[in-house]
Protein backbone atom coordinates (compact mmCIF):
# COMPACT_ATOMS: atom_id res chain seq x y z
CA UNK A 1 0.00 0.00 0.00
CA UNK A 2 1.37 3.39 -0.81
CA UNK A 3 1.12 6.60 1.28
CA UNK A 4 -1.88 7.95 -0.61
CA UNK A 5 -3.82 4.77 0.07
CA UNK A 6 -2.98 4.91 3.82
CA UNK A 7 -4.18 8.54 4.13
CA UNK A 8 -7.43 7.67 2.43
CA UNK A 9 -8.01 4.80 4.80
CA UNK A 10 -7.34 6.97 7.89
CA UNK A 11 -9.75 9.65 6.62
CA UNK A 12 -12.45 7.15 6.11
CA UNK A 13 -11.96 5.83 9.66
CA UNK A 14 -12.27 9.35 11.15
CA UNK A 15 -15.31 10.09 9.09
CA UNK A 16 -16.96 6.96 10.15
CA UNK A 17 -16.47 7.44 13.94
CA UNK A 18 -19.25 6.09 15.92
CA UNK A 19 -20.25 8.05 19.04
CA UNK A 20 -21.92 6.44 22.04
CA UNK A 21 -22.88 7.27 25.70
CA UNK A 22 -21.93 4.93 28.34
CA UNK A 23 -23.83 4.22 31.52
CA UNK A 24 -22.32 7.19 33.23
CA UNK A 25 -23.34 9.49 30.55
CA UNK A 26 -19.93 9.87 29.19
CA UNK A 27 -19.53 10.09 25.50
CA UNK A 28 -17.31 7.38 24.25
CA UNK A 29 -15.70 6.98 20.98
CA UNK A 30 -14.31 4.07 19.38
CA UNK A 31 -11.79 5.72 17.14
CA UNK A 32 -9.21 3.30 16.15
CA UNK A 33 -6.79 6.14 15.59
CA UNK A 34 -7.24 8.79 18.29
CA UNK A 35 -6.74 7.70 21.93
CA UNK A 36 -8.95 8.54 24.77
CA UNK A 37 -8.74 12.08 26.15
CA UNK A 38 -7.34 11.05 29.45
CA UNK A 39 -4.87 9.02 27.73
CA UNK A 40 -3.95 12.01 25.62
CA UNK A 41 -3.57 14.18 28.68
CA UNK A 42 -1.56 11.61 30.54
CA UNK A 43 0.50 10.90 27.53
CA UNK A 44 0.98 14.61 26.94
CA UNK A 45 2.13 15.18 30.50
CA UNK A 46 4.47 12.27 30.35
CA UNK A 47 5.84 13.60 27.15
CA UNK A 48 6.37 17.03 28.63
CA UNK A 49 8.13 15.51 31.61
CA UNK A 50 10.31 13.51 29.35
CA UNK A 51 11.07 16.55 27.17
CA UNK A 52 11.85 18.54 30.28
CA UNK A 53 14.14 15.89 31.63
CA UNK A 54 15.77 15.57 28.32
CA UNK A 55 16.22 19.33 28.13
CA UNK A 56 17.43 19.40 31.68
CA UNK A 57 19.94 16.60 31.69
CA UNK A 58 20.68 15.60 28.10
CA UNK A 59 20.50 19.11 26.64
CA UNK A 60 23.92 20.35 27.83
CA UNK A 61 25.58 17.15 26.72
CA UNK A 62 23.88 17.41 23.36
CA UNK A 63 24.80 21.08 23.07
CA UNK A 64 28.34 20.30 24.08
CA UNK A 65 28.47 17.47 21.60
CA UNK A 66 27.02 19.69 18.92
CA UNK A 67 29.50 22.45 19.77
CA UNK A 68 32.36 19.96 19.71
CA UNK A 69 31.11 18.63 16.46
CA UNK A 70 30.82 22.15 15.11
CA UNK A 71 34.24 22.97 16.36
CA UNK A 72 35.62 19.76 14.87
CA UNK A 73 33.94 20.46 11.60
CA UNK A 74 35.27 24.03 11.70
CA UNK A 75 38.72 22.68 12.38
CA UNK A 76 38.36 20.27 9.54
CA UNK A 77 37.19 23.13 7.34
CA UNK A 78 40.10 25.24 8.50
CA UNK A 79 42.49 22.35 7.93
CA UNK A 80 40.95 21.77 4.56
CA UNK A 81 41.33 25.46 3.76
CA UNK A 82 44.90 25.37 4.99
CA UNK A 83 45.54 22.25 3.00
CA UNK A 84 43.96 23.87 0.02
CA UNK A 85 46.12 26.94 0.51
CA UNK A 86 49.16 24.75 0.97
CA UNK A 87 48.21 22.77 -2.08
CA UNK A 88 47.74 25.96 -4.01
CA UNK A 89 51.11 27.20 -2.82
CA UNK A 90 52.70 23.90 -3.64
CA UNK A 91 50.96 23.92 -6.99
CA UNK A 92 52.33 27.37 -7.60
CA UNK A 93 55.77 26.18 -6.57
CA UNK A 94 55.42 23.14 -8.79
CA UNK A 95 54.28 25.33 -11.63
CA UNK A 96 57.22 27.61 -10.97
CA UNK A 97 59.55 24.65 -10.66
CA UNK A 98 58.06 23.25 -13.81
CA UNK A 99 58.78 26.52 -15.48
CA UNK A 100 62.27 26.49 -14.04
CA UNK A 101 62.71 22.92 -15.17
CA UNK A 102 61.56 23.87 -18.63
CA UNK A 103 63.99 26.78 -18.66
CA UNK A 104 66.75 24.59 -17.26
CA UNK A 105 65.90 21.94 -19.79
CA UNK A 106 66.04 24.50 -22.55
CA UNK A 107 69.34 25.80 -21.20
CA UNK A 108 70.76 22.30 -20.87
CA UNK A 109 69.60 21.46 -24.35
CA UNK A 110 71.18 24.65 -25.65
CA UNK A 111 74.41 23.85 -23.78
CA UNK A 112 74.31 20.30 -25.07
CA UNK A 113 73.75 21.56 -28.59
CA UNK A 114 76.62 24.00 -28.23
CA UNK A 115 78.91 21.33 -26.79
CA UNK A 116 77.89 18.87 -29.46
CA UNK A 117 78.58 21.45 -32.13
CA UNK A 118 81.94 22.23 -30.56
CA UNK A 119 82.82 18.54 -30.26
CA UNK A 120 81.71 18.01 -33.83
CA UNK A 121 83.78 20.93 -35.06
CA UNK A 122 86.75 19.75 -33.03
CA UNK A 123 86.31 16.21 -34.30
CA UNK A 124 86.06 17.41 -37.88
CA UNK A 125 89.12 19.60 -37.41
CA UNK A 126 91.07 16.76 -35.83
CA UNK A 127 89.91 14.37 -38.50
CA UNK A 128 91.00 16.75 -41.22
CA UNK A 129 94.36 17.19 -39.50
CA UNK A 130 94.84 13.45 -39.03
CA UNK A 131 93.80 12.90 -42.62
CA UNK A 132 96.33 15.46 -43.78
CA UNK A 133 99.05 13.89 -41.61
CA UNK A 134 98.13 10.43 -42.81
CA UNK A 135 98.23 11.59 -46.39
CA UNK A 136 101.59 13.25 -45.85
CA UNK A 137 102.96 10.16 -44.11
CA UNK A 138 101.63 7.93 -46.85
CA UNK A 139 103.22 10.12 -49.50
CA UNK A 140 106.49 10.09 -47.54
CA UNK A 141 106.31 6.31 -47.19
CA UNK A 142 105.63 5.96 -50.88
CA UNK A 143 108.54 8.27 -51.68
CA UNK A 144 110.78 6.34 -49.26
CA UNK A 145 109.66 3.05 -50.73
CA UNK A 146 110.33 4.37 -54.22
CA UNK A 147 113.72 5.62 -53.13
CA UNK A 148 114.47 2.36 -51.35
CA UNK A 149 113.36 0.36 -54.32
CA UNK A 150 115.49 2.56 -56.55
CA UNK A 151 118.47 2.14 -54.25
CA UNK A 152 117.95 -1.60 -54.07
CA UNK A 153 117.61 -1.73 -57.83
CA UNK A 154 120.76 0.32 -58.30
CA UNK A 155 122.59 -1.85 -55.76
CA UNK A 156 121.43 -4.99 -57.52
CA UNK A 157 122.47 -3.58 -60.90
CA UNK A 158 125.84 -2.62 -59.40
CA UNK A 159 126.25 -6.07 -57.87
CA UNK A 160 125.39 -7.78 -61.14
CA UNK A 161 127.63 -5.37 -63.01
CA UNK A 162 130.52 -6.03 -60.63
CA UNK A 163 129.99 -9.77 -60.92
CA UNK A 164 129.87 -9.40 -64.67
CA UNK A 165 133.02 -7.27 -64.67
CA UNK A 166 134.85 -9.83 -62.51
CA UNK A 167 133.69 -12.60 -64.79
CA UNK A 168 134.46 -10.79 -68.03
CA UNK A 169 137.83 -9.45 -66.88
CA UNK A 170 138.93 -12.76 -65.38
CA UNK A 171 137.94 -14.55 -68.55
CA UNK A 172 139.76 -12.10 -70.78
CA UNK A 173 143.06 -12.14 -68.87
CA UNK A 174 145.03 -14.63 -70.91
CA UNK A 175 148.84 -14.87 -70.85
CA UNK A 176 149.28 -12.30 -73.58
CA UNK A 177 147.10 -9.82 -71.76
CA UNK A 178 148.93 -10.47 -68.50
CA UNK A 179 152.27 -9.84 -70.16
CA UNK A 180 150.89 -6.73 -71.82
CA UNK A 181 149.67 -5.38 -68.49
CA UNK A 182 153.10 -6.00 -66.90
CA UNK A 183 154.90 -4.36 -69.82
CA UNK A 184 152.57 -1.39 -69.67
CA UNK A 185 153.23 -1.04 -65.93
CA UNK A 186 157.00 -1.17 -66.43
CA UNK A 187 156.79 1.36 -69.23
CA UNK A 188 154.55 3.70 -67.29
CA UNK A 189 156.62 3.53 -64.09
CA UNK A 190 159.84 3.83 -66.06
CA UNK A 191 158.52 6.94 -67.78
CA UNK A 192 157.79 8.64 -64.50
CA UNK A 193 160.49 10.36 -62.48
CA UNK A 194 161.16 10.76 -58.77
CA UNK A 195 158.54 12.91 -57.01
CA UNK A 196 155.98 12.36 -59.73
CA UNK A 197 154.44 9.48 -57.84
CA UNK A 198 152.09 9.89 -54.93
Amino acid at each position, binding site marked *: MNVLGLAITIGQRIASEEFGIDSDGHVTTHSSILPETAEIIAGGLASLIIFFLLAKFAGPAIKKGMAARTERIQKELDAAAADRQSAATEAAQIRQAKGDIAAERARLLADADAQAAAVLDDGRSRLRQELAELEAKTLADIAAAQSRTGDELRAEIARLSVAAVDHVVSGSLDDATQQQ*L*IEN*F*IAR*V*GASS*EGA*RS
Partner: protein
Amino acid sequence: MSDRIEGYARGLFEIARAEGTLDEVEDELFRFARSYESSDALRNALTDEMIPADRRQQIVEDLLGGKATPTTIQLVSLVVGAGRGRDLPAIIDRLVARASTSKQLELAEVRTAVPLTDDQKTRLAAALANATGKNVNVKVVVDPSVLGGVVATIGDTVIDGSVRTRIDQLKSRL
Protein backbone atom coordinates in the same frame (compact mmCIF):
# COMPACT_ATOMS: atom_id res chain seq x y z
CA MET B 1 160.44 -10.45 -29.06
CA SER B 2 161.86 -7.90 -31.52
CA ASP B 3 165.39 -8.62 -30.35
CA ARG B 4 164.82 -12.31 -30.78
CA ILE B 5 163.49 -11.83 -34.31
CA GLU B 6 166.38 -9.55 -35.10
CA GLY B 7 168.78 -12.14 -33.68
CA TYR B 8 167.36 -14.93 -35.80
CA ALA B 9 167.38 -12.68 -38.90
CA ARG B 10 170.98 -11.73 -38.32
CA GLY B 11 171.98 -15.36 -37.79
CA LEU B 12 170.21 -16.57 -40.92
CA PHE B 13 171.64 -13.69 -42.89
CA GLU B 14 175.15 -14.49 -41.81
CA ILE B 15 174.75 -18.18 -42.64
CA ALA B 16 173.40 -17.41 -46.13
CA ARG B 17 176.13 -14.90 -46.79
CA ALA B 18 178.75 -17.33 -45.56
CA GLU B 19 177.31 -19.96 -47.85
CA GLY B 20 177.56 -17.51 -50.74
CA THR B 21 173.96 -18.00 -51.69
CA LEU B 22 172.49 -14.90 -50.14
CA ASP B 23 170.64 -13.65 -53.19
CA GLU B 24 169.07 -17.00 -53.95
CA VAL B 25 168.29 -17.86 -50.33
CA GLU B 26 166.91 -14.42 -49.70
CA ASP B 27 164.60 -14.73 -52.68
CA GLU B 28 163.43 -18.23 -51.75
CA LEU B 29 162.84 -17.29 -48.13
CA PHE B 30 160.86 -14.25 -49.18
CA ARG B 31 158.55 -16.30 -51.41
CA PHE B 32 158.22 -18.95 -48.70
CA ALA B 33 157.22 -16.29 -46.18
CA ARG B 34 154.48 -15.00 -48.46
CA SER B 35 153.18 -18.55 -49.03
CA TYR B 36 153.29 -19.12 -45.29
CA GLU B 37 151.18 -16.01 -44.69
CA SER B 38 148.58 -16.94 -47.26
CA SER B 39 148.17 -20.59 -46.21
CA ASP B 40 146.31 -21.30 -43.00
CA ALA B 41 147.02 -25.01 -43.25
CA LEU B 42 150.77 -24.46 -43.56
CA ARG B 43 150.80 -21.93 -40.77
CA ASN B 44 148.81 -24.20 -38.46
CA ALA B 45 151.04 -27.18 -39.24
CA LEU B 46 154.29 -25.35 -38.58
CA THR B 47 153.11 -23.64 -35.38
CA ASP B 48 151.23 -26.52 -33.75
CA GLU B 49 153.04 -27.34 -30.52
CA MET B 50 151.35 -30.73 -30.42
CA ILE B 51 153.27 -31.77 -33.53
CA PRO B 52 156.86 -32.86 -32.67
CA ALA B 53 159.62 -30.58 -33.91
CA ASP B 54 161.16 -33.21 -36.14
CA ARG B 55 157.77 -33.81 -37.76
CA ARG B 56 157.40 -30.10 -38.47
CA GLN B 57 160.88 -30.00 -39.93
CA GLN B 58 160.00 -32.99 -42.05
CA ILE B 59 157.00 -31.05 -43.38
CA VAL B 60 159.32 -28.21 -44.38
CA GLU B 61 161.70 -30.55 -46.12
CA ASP B 62 158.87 -32.28 -47.94
CA LEU B 63 157.45 -28.94 -48.99
CA LEU B 64 160.63 -27.27 -50.18
CA GLY B 65 162.58 -30.33 -51.26
CA GLY B 66 163.60 -29.93 -54.93
CA LYS B 67 162.17 -26.41 -55.05
CA ALA B 68 164.66 -24.53 -52.93
CA THR B 69 168.34 -24.64 -52.13
CA PRO B 70 169.48 -26.84 -49.22
CA THR B 71 170.50 -23.73 -47.34
CA THR B 72 166.99 -22.32 -47.54
CA ILE B 73 165.47 -25.60 -46.38
CA GLN B 74 167.88 -25.86 -43.48
CA LEU B 75 167.29 -22.30 -42.37
CA VAL B 76 163.51 -22.71 -42.38
CA SER B 77 163.83 -26.05 -40.58
CA LEU B 78 166.04 -24.39 -38.02
CA VAL B 79 163.45 -21.74 -37.21
CA VAL B 80 160.51 -24.17 -37.20
CA GLY B 81 162.41 -26.70 -35.11
CA ALA B 82 163.19 -24.00 -32.56
CA GLY B 83 159.45 -23.39 -32.14
CA ARG B 84 159.62 -19.95 -33.76
CA GLY B 85 157.28 -20.81 -36.62
CA ARG B 86 154.97 -17.95 -35.74
CA ASP B 87 157.82 -15.48 -36.17
CA LEU B 88 159.01 -16.94 -39.47
CA PRO B 89 157.60 -14.18 -41.77
CA ALA B 90 158.95 -11.42 -39.53
CA ILE B 91 162.36 -13.08 -39.31
CA ILE B 92 162.52 -13.52 -43.06
CA ASP B 93 161.40 -9.94 -43.69
CA ARG B 94 164.12 -8.68 -41.40
CA LEU B 95 166.63 -10.91 -43.18
CA VAL B 96 165.57 -9.55 -46.58
CA ALA B 97 165.72 -5.98 -45.28
CA ARG B 98 169.16 -6.61 -43.88
CA ALA B 99 170.28 -8.12 -47.20
CA SER B 100 168.93 -5.14 -49.09
CA THR B 101 170.66 -2.75 -46.75
CA SER B 102 173.91 -4.61 -47.14
CA LYS B 103 173.61 -4.15 -50.88
CA GLN B 104 172.49 -0.56 -50.41
CA LEU B 105 169.20 -1.37 -52.03
CA GLU B 106 165.64 -0.49 -51.08
CA LEU B 107 163.33 -3.49 -50.78
CA ALA B 108 160.57 -3.44 -53.42
CA GLU B 109 157.81 -5.98 -52.91
CA VAL B 110 156.16 -6.64 -56.23
CA ARG B 111 152.92 -8.57 -56.51
CA THR B 112 151.81 -9.96 -59.84
CA ALA B 113 149.23 -12.50 -61.00
CA VAL B 114 151.81 -14.39 -63.06
CA PRO B 115 155.56 -14.88 -62.50
CA LEU B 116 157.96 -12.35 -63.99
CA THR B 117 160.80 -13.27 -66.23
CA ASP B 118 164.33 -12.27 -65.23
CA ASP B 119 164.27 -9.67 -67.95
CA GLN B 120 161.04 -8.22 -66.64
CA LYS B 121 162.46 -8.16 -63.11
CA THR B 122 165.51 -6.28 -64.33
CA ARG B 123 163.50 -3.75 -66.30
CA LEU B 124 161.03 -3.38 -63.48
CA ALA B 125 163.84 -2.73 -61.01
CA ALA B 126 165.23 -0.07 -63.32
CA ALA B 127 161.80 1.51 -63.76
CA LEU B 128 161.19 1.55 -60.01
CA ALA B 129 164.63 3.03 -59.42
CA ASN B 130 163.84 5.73 -61.93
CA ALA B 131 160.49 6.42 -60.31
CA THR B 132 161.70 6.48 -56.70
CA GLY B 133 165.28 7.61 -57.11
CA LYS B 134 166.47 4.57 -55.15
CA ASN B 135 168.11 1.37 -56.21
CA VAL B 136 165.70 -1.39 -55.39
CA ASN B 137 165.88 -5.03 -54.50
CA VAL B 138 162.84 -6.51 -56.24
CA LYS B 139 161.07 -9.38 -54.55
CA VAL B 140 158.24 -10.83 -56.59
CA VAL B 141 155.22 -12.41 -54.97
CA VAL B 142 152.84 -14.28 -57.27
CA ASP B 143 149.41 -13.32 -55.98
CA PRO B 144 146.40 -14.45 -58.07
CA SER B 145 144.17 -11.96 -56.26
CA VAL B 146 145.92 -9.19 -58.18
CA LEU B 147 144.20 -10.62 -61.31
CA GLY B 148 146.54 -8.74 -63.65
CA GLY B 149 149.14 -5.99 -63.74
CA VAL B 150 151.56 -5.14 -60.93
CA VAL B 151 151.49 -3.73 -57.40
CA ALA B 152 154.85 -2.46 -56.20
CA THR B 153 155.52 -1.42 -52.59
CA ILE B 154 158.77 0.43 -51.81
CA GLY B 155 158.84 1.49 -48.19
CA ASP B 156 155.77 3.66 -47.73
CA THR B 157 155.23 4.15 -51.45
CA VAL B 158 152.72 1.98 -53.29
CA ILE B 159 152.54 1.98 -57.07
CA ASP B 160 149.36 0.15 -57.95
CA GLY B 161 148.75 -0.88 -61.54
CA SER B 162 146.68 -3.96 -60.80
CA VAL B 163 143.47 -5.02 -62.46
CA ARG B 164 142.06 -5.79 -59.03
CA THR B 165 142.39 -2.18 -57.93
CA ARG B 166 140.79 -0.91 -61.12
CA ILE B 167 137.87 -3.29 -60.63
CA ASP B 168 137.56 -2.19 -57.01
CA GLN B 169 137.47 1.45 -58.14
CA LEU B 170 134.82 0.54 -60.68
CA LYS B 171 132.83 -1.22 -57.95
CA SER B 172 133.06 1.87 -55.76
CA ARG B 173 131.75 4.05 -58.56
CA LEU B 174 128.94 1.60 -59.21
